[in-house]
């Protein structure tokens, strides 16, 4: 059937559980390593970001209320769905980046495994970071980690899938919602990953994925007053200073990570200490 014209996918944004085109109508061209045209993903606008923040904020309280067990199962469900679509992700990674099949398969495998690893953290965070504090008085006093709210993230350029998962999973596992900007050069796996999310029982608005230019969107994310935290791991170090300055307006918690560890989860959790008297 070599004469068949294949049906190409239109890559859109993922906001509030839906796949809208950018309201700006702007797109940019993705080519592979050899210069062949691949796709026209959306160039997300400031308004798209705003819509994503509104969706993320609306979803946050419900997601936060979900039990840790439930959150863990949903993250595990994402891993299951990703596992089932391995071939598609391997193909897309090869198409866009031109890496070998072995390398692409490893990235997908690592991505599934990473999701499973994060899934298991959901109901262990409070034993990791919580505390019962022996205060000098008749009070019961404990500290628990709690979700911070709405977190923005810039995924690294590569690895485009695994990096995206590191930008999403540690943020949502503790009850936050996220708006993530995918790899600019390799956004295909991000938008396909949105399809995985859409079929994984993740409530609408918990994960929102944008595509576009980092230098354009990062400052908008940094200055948005309804974003509580910002993972800038995928942003070039030279831009960190400016982003941090803009983020100071509402004292956003802005961090950059080099590895996947529980600290990455805890960075976007607040610690709440509760006192209560002990008496008859």
């Amino acid at each position, binding site marked *: 059937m070599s004469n068949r014209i294949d049906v190409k996918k239109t890559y859109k944004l993922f906001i509030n559980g839906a796949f809208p085109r950018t309201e700006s109508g702007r797109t940019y061209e993705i080519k592979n390593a050899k210069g062949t045209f691949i796709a026209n993903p959306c160039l997300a606008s400031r308004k798209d970001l705003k819509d994503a923040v509104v969706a993320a904020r609306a979803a946050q309280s419900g997601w936060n209320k979900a039990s840790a067990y439930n959150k863990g199962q949903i993250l595990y469900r994402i891993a299951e769905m990703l596992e089932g679509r391995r071939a598609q992700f391997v193909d897309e990674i090869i198409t866009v980046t031109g890496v070998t099949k072995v390398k692409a398969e490893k990235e997908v495998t690592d991505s599934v495994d990473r999701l499973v690893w994060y899934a298991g953290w959901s109901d262990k965070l409070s034993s990791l970071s919580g505390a019962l504090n022996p205060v000098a*008085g*008749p*009070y019961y006093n404990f500290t628990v980690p709690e979700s911070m709210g709405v977190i923005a993230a810039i995924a690294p350029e590569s690895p485009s899938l695994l990096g995206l998962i590191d930008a999403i999973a540690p943020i949502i596992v503790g009850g936050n919602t996220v708006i993530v900007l995918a790899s600019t050069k390799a956004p295909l796996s991000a938008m396909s990953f949105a399809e995985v999310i859409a079929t994984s029982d993740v409530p609408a608005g918990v994960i929102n994925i944008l595509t576009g230019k980092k230098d354009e969107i990062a400052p908008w994310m940094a200055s948005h007053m309804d974003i509580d935290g910002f993972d800038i791991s995928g942003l070039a170090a030279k831009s960190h200073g400016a982003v941090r300055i803009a983020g100071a307006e509402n004292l956003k918690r802005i961090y950059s990570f080099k590895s996947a560890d529980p600290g990455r989860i805890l960075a976007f959790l607040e610690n709440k200490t509760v006192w209560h*008297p*002990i*008496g*008859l």
Partner: protein
Amino acid sequence: MSFYGLVDGSDSSLRKYLGALSGVDQVGADARAAMLATRSIKTSSKRWAIDTAISMVDLTTLEGADTPGKVQALCTKAVRPDPTNSSVPSVGAVCVYNDMVAVARKHLDLVGGAHVGLAAVSTAFPSGRASMPVKIQDTQDALDAGASEIDMVIDRGAFLSGNYIDVFNEIVQIRELCGTKAHLKVIFETGELTTYDNVRKASFLAMAAGADFIKTSTGKIAPAATPPVVLVMLEAVRDFYQMTQTRIGVKPAGGIRNTKDAIKQLVLVNETAGPEWLTPSLFRIGASALLNDLLMQRMKMDDGYYASPAYVTID
């Protein structure tokens, strides 16, 4: 009886009335009492405070070994606490077992102590474990022998098992018996009620039932009149006044042994119920050893040096 219009005498109305009371947080009440204990009062006020405290003492002897002689000596001391100094006021009352009431009445009248109250502990004091006819007879005996104040105990067993209406009805009956002849003080034995919530509940129960005074303890059980317990009771009389425009008195008893403790109690009264309660008609301190310490402190203030126990009479 109208019970201030707060209850109609039925179990359900009493439960509703007590159920509407706010709770007491133990740690918070303890902290407030401890903070008030750090107040220090003016030297000029201290002299007044000592005399006020003397006039508030219910000078008490409640021993199995009490004899007419002991009670007579107590009465003499109650009228003139310091035989060498007539400026020392009489105490508020003497407090005795009710078989000693007649002796005390006769002796008080003999030594010019008609103005000193005569309190009898009644209703099968201290345990309250007797039938109601016995409790009534016990009280009637005291009244017949000339008591002007009845210190009754509540049935803590009934209270702790939730039979509030039984406790209420006992107080109502004793109140009726006292009529206008005697003031009624209702003893809770707070050491057995154990929680401040119970103390607050018992206070409101007793006040609605017609108590003139609410009293912490028999003196037979520790802890007794701890500052936070007295704080909770003072808050209760203050709130009851807001509800009914009636001032009920408070009597801590047990554990108040020296002037410092007594002044702490007065500070509690001043800052909780208010200065209106700083009078023997609304605040009494049940004690025995306290009086001598008050007298010694008074001597020290007059003389400028510390007094010796040899200069105050042991009974």
